[in-house]
């Protein structure tokens, strides 16, 4: 430990965010609901984290997120064990650890919640990666249930008119798919209402993240990783709207009372890529010990980036563009523009990039992005090699040293 790095002082810890307990309660209820869907006569759909969940909510289908499940597995430190199981099943160790862990748990049911509720149907949107396509094909074969793919063409330079037409027609195909497999018609008024709640919830999520533009920040990215769960899983519900309003109020109150998450916040950092789920506590304390706060990240803001530009369109129409242009479905140069904005908005002094061997679309290109950030903005950047769920890919001593060295350069 470097000389001028303080020992972690528990007495100096900032007060916890109160809303956390409400969040846990909501998530528990949500999983109980999902696990007992059959008894309630409801259908369960598995859906990707970047997928359009709103039509499912409007059709009263319970959405379940294997990626959220992957994150839970990671946070419970069950990642390596389930990943190894998948490797025994023939899945290469180089595949995404969310997919490996979830595929293994579908069979083993030894994960933190004893396996996800089985799907009646699968909805996969490839706006985050090609991995989900393969993962959902695997699930469709294993559970023998219908699979809908929403194909959102990658945006290298522009979102073309033909891509817009293609995605929009698929949105109507998606609704047709739901109508067939639910045996009911879509209520389009209800759909617009869900859309309105989704926009409202997403806007509130952005407002929550924006509180960190304040110096010192009332929470950090590590908190955002936790509070993210609802905007992913319950987007489009009143529950999410109410919750984020409560959280937003509380964070504003913290600002008013001068409460910051990192007691002596001096350095403000931006995090890139998924969290390292099994090491969030360690990393959070590590940075705090250097008086550094992670005030923003490209990951949790990907969902507020989904705030559609309504422009007089219906929600379904706006959805086509919004879901196609999410953060990791765009080119490196377009990503740079977004990161540059965040660096300015949140007054960022340095960037920490998680080079995540599980997630190729997020991580390949980081070296170029980093070079642009250093050359054009003069912001120093640290790269940490790890994996979000598979703890075998995390070398604590090496990362510890690298963070210390990086913080020394920031301080000098």
């Amino acid at each position, binding site marked *: 430990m470097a000389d001028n790095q303080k020992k972690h002082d528990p007495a100096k810890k900032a007060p916890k965010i109160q809303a956390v307990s409400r969040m846990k309660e909501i998530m528990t209820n949500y999983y109980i609901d999902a696990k007992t869907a059959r008894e309630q006569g409801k259908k369960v759909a598995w859906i990707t984290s970047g997928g359009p969940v709103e039509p499912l909510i409007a059709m009263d289908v319970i959405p379940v997120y294997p990626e959220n499940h992957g994150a839970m597995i990671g946070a419970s430190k069950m990642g390596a064990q389930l990943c190894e199981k998948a490797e025994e*099943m*023939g*899945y*290469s160790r*180089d*595949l*995404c650890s969310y*997919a490996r862990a979830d595929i293994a748990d579908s069979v083993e049911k030894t994960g933190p919640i004893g396996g996800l509720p089985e799907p009646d149907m699968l909805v996969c949107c*490839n706006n985050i*990666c*090609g*991995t989900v*396509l*393969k*993962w959902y*094909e*695997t699930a*469709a*074969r294993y559970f023998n249930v219908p*699979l809908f*793919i929403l*194909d959102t*063409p*990658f945006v*290298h*330079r522009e979102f*073309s008119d*033909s*891509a817009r*037409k*293609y995605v929009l*027609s*698929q949105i109507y*195909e998606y609704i047709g798919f739901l109508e067939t497999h639910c045996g009911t018609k879509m209520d389009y008024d209800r759909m617009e209402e869900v859309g309105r709640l989704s926009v409202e919830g997403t806007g509130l999520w952005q407002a929550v993240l924006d509180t960190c533009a304040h110096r010192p920040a009332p929470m950090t990215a590590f908190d955002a990783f936790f509070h993210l769960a609802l905007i992913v899983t319950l987007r489009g519900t009143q529950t999410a709207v109410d919750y984020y309003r409560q959280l937003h109020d509380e964070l504003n109150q913290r600002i008013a009372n001068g409460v910051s998450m990192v007691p002596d916040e001096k350095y403000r950092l931006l995090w890139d890529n998924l969290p390292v789920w099994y090491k969030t506590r360690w990393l959070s304390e590590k940075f705090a010990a250097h008086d550094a706060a992670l005030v923003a990240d490209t990951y949790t803001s990907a969902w507020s980036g989904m705030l559609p530009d309504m422009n007089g369109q219906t929600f379904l129409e706006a959805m086509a563009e919004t879901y196609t242009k999410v953060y990791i479905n765009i*080119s*490196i*140069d377009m990503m740079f523009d977004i990161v540059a904005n965040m660096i300015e908005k949140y007054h960022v002094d340095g960037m920490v990039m998680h*080079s995540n*061997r599980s997630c*190729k*679309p997020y*991580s*390949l*290109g*980081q*070296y*170029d992005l980093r070079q642009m950030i250093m050359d054009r903005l003069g912001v120093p950047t640290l790269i940490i*090699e790890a994996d979000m769920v598979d703890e075998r890919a995390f070398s604590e001593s090496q990362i510890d040293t690298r963070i210390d060295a990086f913080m020394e350069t920031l301080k000098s």
Partner: protein
Amino acid sequence: MTPAERFRSVWRDPAGYGRSVKQETGRSILGFFCSYAPVELIYAAGILPLRLFGTRGEISLADTHLQSYCCSLVRGGLEDALKGNLDFLDGAVFPHTCDSIQRLSDIWRLNAGFAHHFDAVLPVKLNTQSARQYMIDVLSGFCRELETAFGKQIRDADINAAICAYNQIRKQLKAVYALRSQKPGLFEPSAVHWIMTAAMVMEPAAFLRDITAFLDQIGSSAGDAPQTGRKRLMLAGGICTHPDVYDLLARAGADVVWDDLCTGARYFEGTIAEDAKDPLAAVADRYLSRSVCPAKHADITARGRHLVDAAREQGVDGVVFLQLKFCDPHAFDYPYLKQFLDSAQIPSLLIEIEDQPPPGEQLLTRLETFVDML
């Protein structure tokens, strides 16, 4: 040079071939990495489409841009571009397939410094009407981009002529495959691999002349070729590029008689309707009906069925999967493909290839054990 010698020399040094075409004819050349690159359209624009396979040498420059957990095709392709090994190219076209190629396109565009860069963001779904329409739109947009970049109009007649040329090539390659399956002893172990590489690199008209001459010549001696009495193997895994493993397999006592590789049988699968009113739709329809690449989506068990059918049709004794390290789409399909083979009682073996295949002797022992067991 005999045709066979030419195929081998093109395989050994594809860039050397490209450079000589450039020097002799000044012709525009576009590189590509994947069999979803619409070569017919590139050729119709008077441009030579030339497939890239990535360097077989050391990676150094690409390390500044790509992490180590990225397949060797992507890393090796970038290395070649940054080193100047591809200086004869006017640019490259990137059809959308896997996550790694998608990012390579960005990195290439930002760093490789070629005059032209094309992204053909084809649909990932290949089994719906709207995807078909979108694919036609993308192909048509690609034609417009080519026209603007190279100042040449592409007429339907040009596309139809290109379609005919490639259909002929596909037909001849199919004949080569059929002959090898009947009489594996006629061919050197790697000969067909060299032919396939040459087919994706050489000027189409020149290749067609050579392959036709080659078939005439080898076909005339086919009658005398004895049966080898060796085990019959099929290669699968369909990786985008693969090293020469044929000699090792031969030493292990087996003939490769068929494959399910993109640089093999998948390349000539399916012909395109000739003289179609809408040639772009005809090109699209081949892509939609061809057996699906794992980076694309159609029927979710089609690849498994296709593999088992091909293995039975060709009467193979076993299947060897080649898997390129860090290749997600193919690695995801492996367990299910293996399961399909297992249920059909067709033995299989998985070989993982990093940049190079595992050390020769060690691999040879594994292959021998596998072949003995068949």
